[in-house]
């Protein structure tokens, strides 16, 4: 082949899962989006609301009084994703410190169940990563399959 090729580009690899947060007052469409980072084995997770205008938001306040259920659903979705893509590592953080804390609480609460199949690491600041310990102020979370 001697032809000079056209310039080309690649789309980011994104995998989306959808569910709905439901209360007596309203339903809110949620998206859990896994996006390939600069390190191909690591996928960033974003938990988003799909707004009525079609925009995605990570800062809207749903007020459906089901945060623990939403986060538990997100954890189950991570399990589904890692079952399908067993060599990947999922990393996530809240959009701010206030939103990161519930992740810590839910992971800590669900840890015995999670640890049956997965390993969780917590990150503090830019350097420190360790095996997840409940009640520790992590700001990043890494989850991957044990094997």
């Amino acid at each position, binding site marked *: 082949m001697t032809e000079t090729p056209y310039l080309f580009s690649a789309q980011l690899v994104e995998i989306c899962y959808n569910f709905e947060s439901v209360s007596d007052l309203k339903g809110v469409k949620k998206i859990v989006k896994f*996006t390939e980072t600069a*390190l191909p084995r690591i996928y960033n997770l*974003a938990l988003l609301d799909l707004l009525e205008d079609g925009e995605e938001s*990570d*800062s809207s306040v749903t007020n459906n009084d089901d945060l623990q259920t939403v986060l538990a659903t997100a954890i189950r979705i991570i399990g589904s994703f890692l079952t399908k893509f067993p060599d990947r590592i999922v990393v996530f*953080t809240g959009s701010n410190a206030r939103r990161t804390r519930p992740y810590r609480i839910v992971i800590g609460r669900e840890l015995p169940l999670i640890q049956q199949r997965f390993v969780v690491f917590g990150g503090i600041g*830019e350097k420190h990563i360790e095996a997840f310990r409940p009640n520790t102020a992590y700001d990043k979370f890494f989850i*991957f399959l044990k094997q």
Partner: protein
Amino acid sequence: MEKTNEKADIVSPVVTKKLSPSQQKLAEMNAYLAKTDTAQLFRLIDEIRDDERTKQRDKQ
């Protein structure tokens, strides 16, 4: 006398594309991963997986 807006002639518009929340999060995560010792992270993960495989083999 006709008013002119001299600034409009000087300042050229800067168009910035707003990132979606997931793109923003990805950019922040990539910046974080660039500063983190990911080689050590991968080593830890590989060690844990090797241990698990050994445990499974020992069970069988």
